């Protein structure tokens, strides 16, 4: 991730390095030019100095010959040594163009010094003819040296002309380079600013739009996308995450309220079914006892079963109940049906005892059995048979309810499954559909947070089989969602 700060830092560093580099380079170049200037001046000074030394040495020698003072001889010696030193330094000037001339020059200085030495020697020996001859000769050579000095300076100047020309050329290039670099940095800064501010404002605009959507309650918009990999990437990622979380929470709340609504519906239904159930329940109990006292045992029993069924319905539907209780209700319900239909209806129950103390949602089995009876057996001409098998298998509770009635058509099955999506529709209280199976399916889904717990098998002609496959709950009472 390249942070904004890093970007800015790199930009500023590049700019600073570039400008410093240019400055450094200019300084270095001018320094070099200065060196060359210095060299040139040194050359001129050296040549001038040598010419001067020669002249001085000659003059001093002449004066010395005139008044013999040792002091003059000393000054001559000084000039002489200086001349020799400077002659050594002539290497500074040496180059291809003036090499021969310079060689001559050096030799001339030697010749001059030789002649001077010979003149001094002759002078000390008192050989007037010879010393004046050598003095004259050294004077002549001094003249040559002066001439050659001028010629050398001339040649240096010719070289300098070329030097000056190239220097001007180079300065022109520097000027062009400066202008180019100025434009380059200007454009570079402009481009960087556009890029940088674009990289900042674009994600902000997108976040702004997304935030507006959320404010309107629209959570399912697309995620905000950022191309850069800076702080904005982090910000938008967090924003997207937050939005999705919120969306999920809202959906959970919706689900929960749906469950509550279904439970309320169920309760309402029971209440509707019961009218004043407590009063009816008590009355039924009184009727049962009366029937018993009057010796109508069967009637008494029937009424007691009906009363039990009512009481079960009165119970809190929010609470899970033990499977044994559910099974008991089925028995009561069946007793009532058996009384009504007699031999036409047979119930077979096979419940594994170890299943009985598991908890399941209340009012699950009864609506299924009722459904089997109403849709399967009632329209069926022959002997009806309802089988209930409960088993525990592979950590699941299997509840198998089968009838041998007319069976369900495909459309009916589909309708039952689909009913889920039509729950908003005002409830059709008709006997045929009822809240029955569909309500069971949805409550199972909500209770266990699993789908397809209830499967309907029917070939559409003979018999229906409904299999519930429920996860095993702990043996303690489950807390309701």
């Amino acid at each position: 991730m390249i942070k904004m700060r890093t970007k800015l830092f790199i930009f500023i560093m590049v700019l600073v390095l570039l400008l410093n580099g240019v400055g450094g380079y200019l300084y270095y170049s001018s320094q070099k030019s200065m060196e060359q200037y210095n060299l040139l001046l040194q050359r001129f000074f050296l040549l001038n100095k040598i010419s001067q030394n020669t002249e001085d040495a000659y003059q001093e020698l002449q004066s010395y010959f005139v008044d013999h003072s040792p002091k003059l001889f000393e000054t001559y010696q000084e000039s002489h040594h200086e001349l020799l030193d400077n002659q050594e330094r002539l290497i500074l000037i040496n180059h291809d163009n003036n090499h021969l001339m310079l060689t001559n020059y050096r030799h001339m200085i030697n010749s001059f010094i030789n002649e001077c030495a010979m003149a001094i020697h002759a002078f000390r020996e008192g050989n007037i003819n010879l010393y004046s001859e050598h003095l004259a000769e050294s004077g002549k050579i001094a003249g040559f040296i002066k001439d050659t000095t001028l010629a050398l300076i001339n040649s240096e100047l010719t070289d300098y002309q070329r030097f000056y020309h190239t220097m001007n050329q180079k300065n022109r290039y520097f000027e062009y380079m400066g202008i180019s670099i100025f434009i380059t940095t200007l454009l570079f800064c402009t481009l960087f600013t556009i890029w940088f501010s674009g990289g900042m404002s674009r994600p902000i605009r997108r976040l702004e739009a997304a935030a507006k959507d959320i404010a309107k309650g629209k959570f399912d918009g697309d995620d905000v996308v950022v191309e850069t990999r800076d702080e904005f990437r982090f910000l938008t990622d967090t924003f997207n995450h937050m939005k999705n979380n919120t969306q999920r929470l809202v959906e959970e709340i919706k689900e929960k309220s749906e469950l509550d609504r279904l439970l309320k519906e169920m309760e309402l239904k029971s209440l509707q079914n019961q009218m004043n159930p407590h009063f009816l329940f008590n009355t039924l109990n009184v009727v049962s006892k009366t029937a018993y006292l009057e010796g109508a045992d069967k009637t008494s029993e029937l009424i007691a079963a009906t009363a039990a069924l009512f009481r079960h319905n009165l119970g809190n539907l929010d609470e899970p109940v033990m499977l044994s209780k559910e099974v008991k209700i089925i028995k009561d319900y069946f007793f009532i049906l058996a009384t009504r239909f007699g031999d036409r209806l047979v119930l077979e129950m096979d419940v594994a005892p170890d299943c009985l103390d598991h908890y399941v949602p209340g009012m699950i089995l009864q609506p299924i059995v009722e459904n089997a009876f109403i849709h399967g057996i009632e329209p069926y001409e022959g002997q009806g048979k309802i089988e209930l098998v409960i088993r525990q298998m592979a950590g699941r509770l299997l509840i198998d309810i089968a009838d041998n009635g007319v069976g369900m058509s495909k459309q009916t099955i589909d309708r039952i499954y689909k009913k889920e999506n039509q729950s908003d529709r005002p409830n059709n209280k008709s006997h045929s559909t009822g809240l029955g199976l569909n309500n069971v399916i949805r409550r199972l889904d909500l209770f266990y947070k699993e789908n397809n717990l209830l499967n309907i098998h029917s070939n559409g002609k003979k018999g229906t089989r409904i299999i519930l496959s429920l996860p095993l709950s702990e043996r303690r009472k489950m807390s309701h969602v």
Partner: protein
Amino acid sequence: MKKYHRIFFGLLLLGFAASFGMSIYFFLKTLHTNVVLANEKDIKEPVYHFILIPEEMDNPYWRSLKKGAADAGRHAGAAIEYIGPVQTNTDEQIKIIEKAIASKVDGIITQGIDKPAFKDAIHRAKRAGIPVITIDTDAPDSERSTYIGSDNYLAGYLAGQTLIKGTNGHAVVGIITGNYNPNEKLRVKGFQDAVSKQSGIKIAGVKSSNISRIQAAEKTYEMFQKHPDITAFYGTSALDGLGIAAVAEKFGKAKDLYIISFDALPETLNLLGKGVIDATVKQKPYAMGHKSVQTMVQLLHHHDPPKILYTETTVIKKADIMSEKGGRGND
């Protein structure tokens, strides 16, 4: 709007790339422009250092001679310094010789001068151990080691013979000589000796042009005035022939006069082609220059060459010009 942004951005980018490229280009330009004074460190030290002192610096004859010397020098590893007076000036020539001695050169090649100062200078060179070769013009009574150049007497003699042949032995001849230096004297002498046996040839007079074209023309004109019967002219230096030819052309006598000249300057050859000049004695300056350097190297190795080494002289006429033009570079 978006599209314009794109275009604007693209232009900026393009401008940036262009200016960036320019920056680099000019940066490299400045980098490759070396602003340094001449300062070669590894100078090839020549084996020998000779000085060639001409009569006159900017003179085609001497330049040809210099070229010969330089070519031989390159071969022998000798640096040839070519220094002389801008215009003929013997005093300056002698001064340059003295300077060369003070400069301790390895050898001096100079035109011979008939002056005591010259002899004196050669003497000092000899004493300093510097060999001297005279070239083009000899100074036989100096201490020069060798003379290399034309046999001037022979050249004059050749000119005389050519004139006799060209005029069928009947002519009145005016002689214009450059100056009275030994060279010219020998050329006049050789000529005189050649024509003396021929009774039909008469010499009207000898005049000096002082090696100047204008003076040569003046002297020619003077001689014409004095001896209207002149039928031929003989010029002993390169410029004399040109001066004579100028006068001859002016008086419309170019065809009648028989003009014999010295040396083969381009102008001389041109006049020869036009038929104004009838013949010219050609020396070989390139060969002289070449030979002088070789001889100098021999001298330095103590192989004593002969005192006098003549180079060839020939007479060329109009017919020879075509071949002459072809090989003018080396004589």
